């Protein structure tokens, strides 16, 4: 990161001055998360493990799309790559689960870094379409290498067992296993996007030319972020595979990518907490949609997406932050009636 930290701190649009309370909030949230298996045993715990794995992967896509503004539909590729790397190194080479997740992270970072090179030349719709090709390649690739991946039938394997001293059962054990990774990942990403790198990313999203003329190595940073985001996609996929105990190509279709993209937009682009909302969205909305109507599940899901875009284009957390900001500004300067954060001057002006 030493190449990119040259952007001088903009005078106005600095980090939001609520650092301490939000750190406390996150600590309280993490503490609450530790209680989940005690409060909701069994299937609910399993579902919340799913929320965490999705949230990790969604955070990765939020780095790529929310922080840098590159629209990617290929996140399912990295989710799948992480899952297969972890499971295959675990079952074929006997690597233990935590280490295999780390190997999957490295492999996905490398793959994402390579995929980032074409990505840095393309933007907007073209990038979306190129990554669409990545998305539809997953199923054919899995089927082609069926001697390793089990082909269309998929692979079943034993979930990691808890040690003897752990008495809450396997679901709770896996929950804590995933939660540990989630805390590390969220903490690391929060530090990554705070400070100078975060401002450099905001600069790229706001105007590439302006950012590069202020000394941001735009291409390098874009590729690194694509690699990092893909890595988180892979970590999420690897952890999801361990919690489910089965991987097959049907879990990694284009629909998964659409879900990721939709969930981070609904959650809130360019916010850390948006990824948590995205995890909840991905875990619960599709299943509630099919509860409402089995036959029309897709229509309900699609309808929810469209309504969210109509009513809250900044996503759930984006709308909340805007509301809170307006409140705070209004209470600080009763005369100015609250300036929304979007109307603050941009760094390049």
């Amino acid at each position, binding site marked *: 990161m030493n190449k990119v930290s040259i952007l001088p701190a903009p005078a106005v649009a600095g980090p939001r001055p609520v650092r301490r309370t939000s750190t406390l909030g996150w600590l309280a949230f993490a503490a609450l998360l530790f209680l989940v298996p005690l409060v909701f045993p069994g299937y609910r715990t399993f579902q919340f493990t799913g929320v965490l794995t999705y949230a990790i992967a969604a955070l990765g896509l939020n780095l790529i799309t929310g922080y840098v503004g590159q629209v990617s539909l290929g996140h399912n590729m990295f989710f799948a790559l992480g899952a297969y790397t972890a499971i295959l190194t675990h079952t074929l080479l006997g690597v233990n689960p935590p280490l295999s997740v780390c190997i999957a992270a490295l492999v996905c970072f490398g793959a994402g870094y390579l995929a980032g090179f074409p990505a840095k030349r393309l933007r907007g719709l073209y990038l979306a379409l190129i990554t669409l090709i990545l998305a539809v390649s997953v199923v054919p690739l899995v089927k082609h290498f069926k001697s390793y991946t089990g082909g269309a039938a998929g692979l079943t394997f034993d979930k990691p067992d808890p040690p003897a001293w752990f008495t809450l059962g396997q679901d709770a054990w896996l929950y804590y296993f995933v939660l540990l990774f989630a805390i590390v990942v969220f903490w690391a990403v929060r530090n990554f996007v705070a400070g100078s790198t975060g401002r450099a990313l905001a600069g790229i999203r706001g105007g590439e030319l302006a950012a590069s003329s202020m000394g941001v190595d735009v291409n390098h940073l874009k590729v690194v972020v694509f690699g990092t985001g893909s890595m988180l996609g892979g970590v999420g996929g690897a952890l999801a595979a361990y919690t489910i105990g089965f991987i097959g190509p049907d879990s990694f279709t284009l629909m998964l990518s659409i879900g990721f993209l939709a969930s981070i937009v609904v959650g809130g682009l360019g916010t850390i907490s948006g990824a948590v909302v995205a995890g909840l969205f991905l875990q619960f909305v599709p299943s509630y949609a099919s509860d409402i109507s089995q036959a029309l599940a897709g229509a309900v*899901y699609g309808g929810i*997406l469209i309504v969210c875009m109509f009513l809250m284009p900044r996503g759930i957390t984006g709308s909340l932050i805007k509301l809170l900001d307006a409140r705070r500004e209004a209470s600080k300067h009763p005369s100015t009636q609250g300036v929304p954060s979007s109307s603050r001057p941009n760094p390049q002006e």
Partner: protein
Amino acid sequence: MQYFLQQIINGIGDGAIYASLGLALVLIYRTTNIANFAQGEMATVSAYVAWQCVAWGLPLGWAIVVAIVVSLFVGMATYLIFVRPVQNKDELTIIIVTLGLFLAFNSLSGATWGFMQMPLDSPFPEKYFSIGSFRVSVELLGTVAVLVAISVGMFLLFQKTRLGMALRAAASNGSSAKLVGIPFTAMMAIGWGLAAVLGAVSGLLVAPRVTIDPNMMGSIIIYAFAAAVVGGLTSYRGAVVGGAVVGISQSLSMAYLPWLGADLQILLPLLLIVAVLIVKPEGLFGSTVMVRV
């Protein structure tokens, strides 16, 4: 050599279908600057409408006419209800909305007509011409003829009629078009309606080959996007050439690279597209967009 030419001819048949759906994508991209991910699913609905009319006893020709008229209105309604409210929002919002439409249309056609595969007769007779030692099916000739007719029709519409000029004006500069009295919203809706008609044509060409089911356009929309993007996404000519490139490369990889296996063969044309875009990010016929800073 003869085998090679035969493969090219087969590829052109597929390519014409990708091109007709690709033209729909280009039309929408040029009029409203949107990539419509739901285009394929809208085409599936059109094919189902034709099937339903045949099931109710209409002759195939009339069923096709009904399907095309219904598609025109479905396309216009889709624009007015779902797209217009977000048209000026950022790209990602619009992408999510068209992805939502994709899910909704897919699920609605599944809920209405079920997931069984339904046959639809081809409008062309099942005959072959033998020219020398080549075998060319009437269906292939018909498909290419339909594509040519569409292309000529679009050219005449956009270049020779007042409506076409109004459509172009609304697409190229909305606010100026409004100032000279062109009904902007109506033009956008007509653009979406026409694109839905092009999509319907591709759906009606695909349906007899693969039988209708809710996911029948799933892979075709990907190839159509590939065709449109390789041509530059803004060029009608590019979409037609792109369709041919995709169709022919697909057919050649099936014929000459059997060791790749069926799964990887379907990916080869897409890899070709990636290669083209890496070398020439604006596509073969696309115009380089100048950005004022």
